[in-house]
């Protein structure tokens, strides 16, 4: 395990997440893509922390990324609920226009 290998694995996770976030039609599946992207960010940050500067500050940054994942999940579920209530749908393609 080296920094290069950890970062390549993180890049692979992030790229898979990019594919999911761009290609999926269901809101919850788009959220899964975003989660995978943040999964890659966490791994990359952990690798950089351990192999370059293992000070406590890096761990605090990881906590912030995990908090960002929490916010993304909560708001994603709220938007999915709103979309389902207002449009009777959970597809992104049904929410391409503004109304009201």
């Amino acid at each position, binding site marked *: *395990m080296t920094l290069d290998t950890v*970062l390549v694995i993180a890049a692979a996770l992030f*790229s898979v997440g990019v594919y999911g976030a*761009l*290609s999926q039609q269901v809101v919850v599946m788009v959220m899964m893509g975003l989660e995978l992207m943040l999964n890659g960010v966490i791994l990359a940050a*952990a690798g950089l922390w351990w192999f370059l500067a293992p000070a406590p500050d890096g761990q605090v940054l990881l*906590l912030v990324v*995990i908090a960002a994942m929490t916010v993304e999940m909560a*708001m994603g579920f709220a938007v999915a609920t709103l979309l389902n209530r207002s449009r009777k749908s959970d597809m992104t393609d049904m929410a391409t226009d503004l109304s009201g």
Partner: protein
Amino acid sequence: MSPVLDAVFWVLAVISVAAGIAVFRVDSMARATYALAVSFVAVGAILLLLNLEYIGVITILMMVMEMAVMAIFMIMFMGMNPALMPMSMVHNKVGSLVLALGVFVVLAGGALLVDWPARRGEPAGDLTRSLGEAVMGSKMLVMLTVSPLLFATLVAALVLATPRGRYDRFGDDLRAATPRGPGEQGDQA
């Protein structure tokens, strides 16, 4: 790092990426949820290999619970048994694939081509304790910022998700003497 730990890292790395790919390859949302949970658990285990005991454990615990919640939401919204219903709901598959491959080439190329500096400093003896001291000491402002952000997220999520707002309860001019209940005359929800 010992050869055994190195082998464990590669096994976990392959599992995390393969499970990540499986999220968008399996034919039901329930399986996709399980695949994503496996990917997160594998990454959490890699964090444990990097001596990030606290971060690794909370990543595993949080993501397993999140996937459970996600499965409930899918059952709510899809109105079907997500474990049995095959699905393929994608758009612009080729374009997304090309972009994702491009992102991977750029990121992995950068990771391999950059001449990374040597490690500066040594990790503390007890990393979890040092994290706690940082959070309660020099990095307290970070936590003081994250805390109201999480509270604001709770409020915003509730406002978005609730079916009835104040205009539904108190009328368009917000002057109703008593709030209207769900389904009562004048309730617009």
